[in-house]
């Protein structure tokens, strides 16, 4: 199902913005615009190493560039959520909402993350539960077979 977290960047787009960023990097003149555009593509990549790199670039921007704070926070929340680092991601959402409490876009991202967390948490619990049952069954079988010869 497509949603804001599962949408991925087209490889050609990622490449395009990567090239711009690297050109500026080699001439030591990276603009916050180029860095943001590249990071925005990276956090939407299929590969977690890319997402990680995007998060680092956004954190760097956040520390050096005051005016784009809301943009950086939003994409930090999105990037960390895509890495399944949900508590970090929810912290970024809260930080954003403490400045702009009613922001629908961030509220809806927050909701999507909470739903994911709930779903994956339940799945984790179900798997753990399954494991307990399986171990229980094995122990039961072991006990049963152990008991047999004495009969």
């Amino acid at each position, binding site marked *: 199902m*497509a949603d804001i977290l599962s949408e991925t960047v087209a490889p050609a*787009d990622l490449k395009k913005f990567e090239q711009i960023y690297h050109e500026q990097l080699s001439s030591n003149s990276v603009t916050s615009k180029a860095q943001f*555009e590249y990071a*925005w593509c990276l956090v939407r990549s299929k590969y977690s190493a890319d997402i990680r790199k995007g998060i680092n670039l956004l954190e760097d921007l956040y520390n050096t560039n005051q005016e784009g704070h809301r943009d950086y926070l939003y994409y930090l929340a999105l990037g960390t959520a895509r890495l399944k680092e949900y508590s970090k991601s929810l912290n970024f959402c809260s930080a954003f909402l403490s400045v702009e409490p009613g922001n629908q876009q961030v509220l809806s991202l927050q909701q999507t993350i909470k739903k994911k967390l709930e779903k994956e948490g339940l799945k984790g619990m179900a798997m753990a539960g399954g494991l307990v049952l399986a171990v229980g069954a094995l122990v039961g079988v072991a006990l049963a077979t152990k008991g047999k010869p004495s009969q």
Partner: protein
Amino acid sequence: MSGGPYNYSYIFKYIIIGDMGVGKSCLLHQFTEKKFMADCPHTIGVEFGTRIIDVCGQKIKLQIWDTAGQERFRAVTRSYYRGAAGALMVYDITRRSTYNHLSSWLTDTRNLTNPSTVIFLIGNKCDLEAQRDVTYEEASKFAEENGLMFVEASAKTGDNVEEAFLETAKKIYQSIQDGRLDLNAAESGVQHKPSTPGRNNLSSDNQGSKDNCSC
């Protein structure tokens, strides 16, 4: 809901574009939530919304990408145009500059989407008649010259908001039925969901629904 894995048979991808502050996100919100969002902040990058609608007896899921109007997002939001089946191009009837920029929005859309993409022009904020800066006639002429569908709407009152989204879907659905839109093309912006066993395929749908279809 009749037992299939999907409760819709198609997915249409839409984009909403236009200058900042024309009310793109408010139109989306009005369409998906049936509520008006007052004091809507600037969108960051892109926002996403969905709604399942009914067109000619078919359930269609709209996946809507609402792009930020601010210039600094423009380079990346362009990549969302690709593969859109419908494009809602919005201006504000009380601000002429947003209307004057339409030709550049249109050029972008034509360059980045495919020829079968349905482009719908929306003149938003038609509730603010006293502050009108662009006449209906002028915009209507622009739409006609460029082969666009057109309506004036209000995200605040909800006037014509449903119509714009639904008419776009009808037009796309028509293109599928006419065979003008190739579902197998990678960037048609339309996905056909596998039908449940025993249900009609597209071609028999075509014959069956043509008569009672109002579009």
